[in-house]
C-alpha cells in the first residue's frame, strides 16, 4: 500500500489547491466565489478539527468566532484601510481573545455540559450582536462599508463608489488571468489565491500540531483524562490551548469571508452555522488531516449545486420518461433540492453518523482495502 509521508502529502495538497481553477473547471465549480468558499470553510474546518478531532471536545460555539472575525475585519476596513492584512490580523487576535474567555468558562466542564455551554454562548453572542452590541454590529441591518468611513491609512480619495478590499493594491475581486483551456473559460483571481495560500499554511500548521508533542497530549486528553492527570499533566490548559487555536482559525475564516464580501450580519454567528462546521469535520473524518477540508468542499459544493436546482431543472432530468414517471420522480426529488437543501443536509448528517462514523476518509480507506482484497482473490493469492 502506498504510504504518504507528510512532505509528499503537503506537496500534493499545495499543488491541488493552487491548480484548483483548472482542476475544478469540468465540475462547474471553478468560479472564484465558490472556490474562495471552499478555501475559507476549509480553514474553518481544519481549525475546528484541532479541537474536536484531537481532544474530542464538541463545541457548538465556533460560529461565534467566525462572526467575531468578520466584524473585526469590517471595522479595520472602515477605520484603517481596505488592505486585508490589518483586517486579517485583527480578526485572528480578536477571535483568539474571545475564544480564550469563552473557552476558559466552558472548559470548566466536559462532555455534554461543555457542548451545551458552548451552544449557549454561541446563541448569546448571536443575540448580543442583534441587541446589546448594535453600535458595533449595526444590528439587523448588518455592518457594511460606507462612503464616509474614515479609512485613515488609505488617505483621501475621490470616493464616488465603495472601495474594494485589496492586498497592497491588488484587488481581491480582480481576475488577473482569464485563459481558455480545453474549451473552459478559466478565471484566476487574487482573492482565491490569498485564501489558497492561507489554506495551505493552515493545513501545514495543523499537520505540525498533529505530529507534535502538543498534539500527542491533545489526543491523550481525548482517550483518557484520568490517566493523563495521574501522569502529571494538567489537561485543562491543553484543551484551552486547542480551543483558542481553533477559535483563531475560525476568526481567520471569518476575516476572509469579509475580504470576499465586505459586509456581515449577525446570522453568521448563529449556532447552526457552528453545527455546519461540525458536520464538515464529521463528514470528512474527524481527527484526520485532510478529512475536514474534504468535508468542507463536499458540503459547500453540494450546497451550491443543490440550491440552484429548481423544479424545472428536475423535470428536465426526467423529460425522456413518460409524464407520470417524470412527475412522480420530480415529486420525490424536488423536496431535497433548491430550498430543500437543508433537508438533504440533515439527512446527510444522520447517514454519516449512523453508517460512516469515520467519515469520507475512513470510507475511502475501507473501499481501498476492499478493492485490494478483491484483486488478490482474483489472482488467487
Amino acid at each position: 500500500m502506498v504510504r504518504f509521508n507528510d512532505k509528499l502529502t503537503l506537496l500534493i495538497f499545495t499543488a491541488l489547491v493552487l491548480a484548483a481553477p483548472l482542476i475544478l473547471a469540468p465540475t462547474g465549480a471553478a468560479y472564484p466565489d465558490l472556490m474562495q468558499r471552499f478555501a475559507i470553510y476549509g480553514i474553518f474546518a481544519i481549525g475546528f478539527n484541532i479541537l474536536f478531532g484531537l481532544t474530542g471536545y464538541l463545541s457548538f460555539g465556533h460560529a461565534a468566532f467566525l462572526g467575531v472575525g468578520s466584524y473585526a475585519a469590517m471595522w479595520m476596513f472602515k477605520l484603517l484601510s481596505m488592505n486585508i492584512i490589518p483586517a486579517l490580523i485583527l480578526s485572528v487576535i480578536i477571535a483568539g481573545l474571545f475564544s480564550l474567555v469563552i473557552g476558559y468558562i466552558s472548559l470548566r466542564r466536559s462532555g455534554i455540559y461543555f457542548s451545551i455551554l458552548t451552544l449557549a454562548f454561541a446563541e448569546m453572542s448571536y443575540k448580543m450582536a442583534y441587541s446589546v452590541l448594535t453600535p458595533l454590529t449595526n444590528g439587523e441591518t448588518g455592518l457594511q462599508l460606507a462612503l464616509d468611513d474614515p479609512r485613515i491609512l488609505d488617505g483621501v480619495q475621490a470616493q464616488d463608489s465603495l472601495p474594494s478590499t485589496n492586498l497592497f493594491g491588488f484587488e481581491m475581486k480582480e481576475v488577473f488571468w482569464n485563459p481558455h483551456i480545453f474549451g473552459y473559460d478559466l478565471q484566476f483571481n487574487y482573492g482565491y489565491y490569498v485564501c489558497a495560500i492561507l489554506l495551505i499554511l493552515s493545513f501545514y500548521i495543523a499537520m505540525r500540531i498533529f505530529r507534535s508533542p502538543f498534539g500527542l497530549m491533545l489526543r491523550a486528553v481525548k482517550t483518557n483524562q484520568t490517566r493523563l492527570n495521574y501522569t502529571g499533566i494538567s489537561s485543562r490548559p491543553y484543551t484551552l490551548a486547542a480551543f483558542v487555536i481553533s477559535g483563531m482559525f475560525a476568526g481567520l475564516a471569518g476575516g476572509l469571508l469579509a475580504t470576499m464580501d465586505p459586509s456581515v450580519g449577525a446570522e453568521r454567528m448563529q449556532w447552526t452555522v457552528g453545527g455546519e462546521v461540525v458536520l464538515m469535520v464529521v463528514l470528512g473524518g474527524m481527527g484526520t488531516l485532510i478529512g475536514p477540508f474534504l468535508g468542507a468542499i463536499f458540503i459547500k459544493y453540494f450546497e451550491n449545486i443543490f440550491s440552484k436546482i429548481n423544479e424545472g431543472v428536475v423535470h428536465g432530468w426526467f423529460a425522456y420518461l413518460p409524464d407520470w414517471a417524470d412527475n412522480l420522480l420530480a415529486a420525490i426529488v424536488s423536496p431535497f433540492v433548491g430550498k430543500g437543501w437543508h433537508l438533504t443536509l440533515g439527512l446527510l448528517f444522520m447517514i454519516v453518523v449512523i453508517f460512516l462514523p469515520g467519515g469520507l476518509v475512513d470510507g475511502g480507506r475501507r473501499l481501498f482495502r476492499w478493492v485490494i482484497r478483491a484483486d488478490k482473490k482474483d489472482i488467487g493469492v
Partner: protein
Amino acid sequence: MDAIFLQILNGLDKGSAYALIALGLTLIFGTLGVVNFAHGALFMVGAFIAVTFSKVLEISKVTVDPDKVDFLGNPAKIKVPYVVDWFGSFGDWIIDYTIPISLLFAIPVMILIGVIMERGLIRHFYHRPHADQILVTFGLAIVMGELIKLWFGSESIPVHVPEAYKSALDIGVWFGFEPGSVIYPNWRLVYFFFSVIVLSGVFAFLRFTTFGMVVRAGMADRETVGLLGININKRFTIMFGIAAAVAGTAGVMYTGVNKPVFHMGMDFLVLSFVVVVVGGMGSLRGAVAAGFLLGILESFASMPLVKDAIAAIGLPSIDQIIIYLVAVVILLVRPRGLMGKAGVMED
C-alpha cells in the same frame, strides 16, 4: 407592585414551556443517558399536530347559493366545513375547541413518534460516544424541522383558541390590585394550569407507581437496576414515549400562545438545554424550577421599568441575553447547577 405581579404572570407561560420541555430532556438524560437534540423538534411536531387538525376541520363542502351573487356577479359560493355539515352545532363546538381536542390525537401520535425514535434510532446510540448521540439527534432535528417546513411552509400559522378563552381576565382584582392594572389573557392562564397538571401528573407517576419507582432507581443507578433482572430497556422506551408526549402536548397548547413556525423547536431547544443545565443535569425538580425561574427572569428583563433602570446606569438593554448571563453565572458558582447531583453525565 402590580407591574411586578404582571411580569411574574407573563413569565409563567414561557416558563411553563421551558419546564415541560426541560422535564422531558432531563428524563431522557437520566434514564437513557442520551442527549436528545431532537427534543425541541418534538415540541414543534406537537404544535403542528394542532395545525393539521385545524386544517382538517376547515375542509369544507362548497355549495353554490343561487340567490346571491358575489361582487363579480357570479353565483356566491358558500363554504361549510364538513364537521358542521354533519354534526351541526356540535361541529361548530369542535371547531371552536380545536386545540384542546387536538390533545387527544397528539398524545397517542407523540407516544408513537417517541417510541419509533427510541427503537429506530436512539437505541443504537447508547454505546456510542456522546458526540455521536448529539450529532445524530441534531441531524434528526434538522430533518424534522425541514419536513414540517416542506409541508406547511416557512410562515407561522395561527391556530385559534376557543372563543370562551379569547378575552383577557382582570386577575389583579383577585389579589387586591386596582381593576384594570393586571390583565392577563385567559389562554395563557390555561397554559399555565395545563403545565402544572402535566408536571404534577408526571411527578405523581414517577413517585407512586412501581413503574416510576423503577425508572427513578434506573436514573440513580442503571447498572444495579439492570442486574435485578428488571427489563429496564422496555421501561426506558416507554419513558421516551412519555417524554415525547409531554413535549408534544406542550407544543399543542402553545399554539394558542404563539403562532407555530417550523423553527420554534430549535429556538426552544437551546433555551431548554440552558434550563436543564442550570437546574442540574438529571434533576427533575431542578429542571422545572429552573424553567419557571428563567421564564420569569426573561419577562422581568423585558419590563420597561427594568429596561429604564438598566439604561440609567449606562448599560444597554439585556433582555435578550439575560437567561444566558444568569446561566453562566450560576454555572460558575455552582458547576452542577441548582439541584444537580455529583456524577451525573460527567464522564
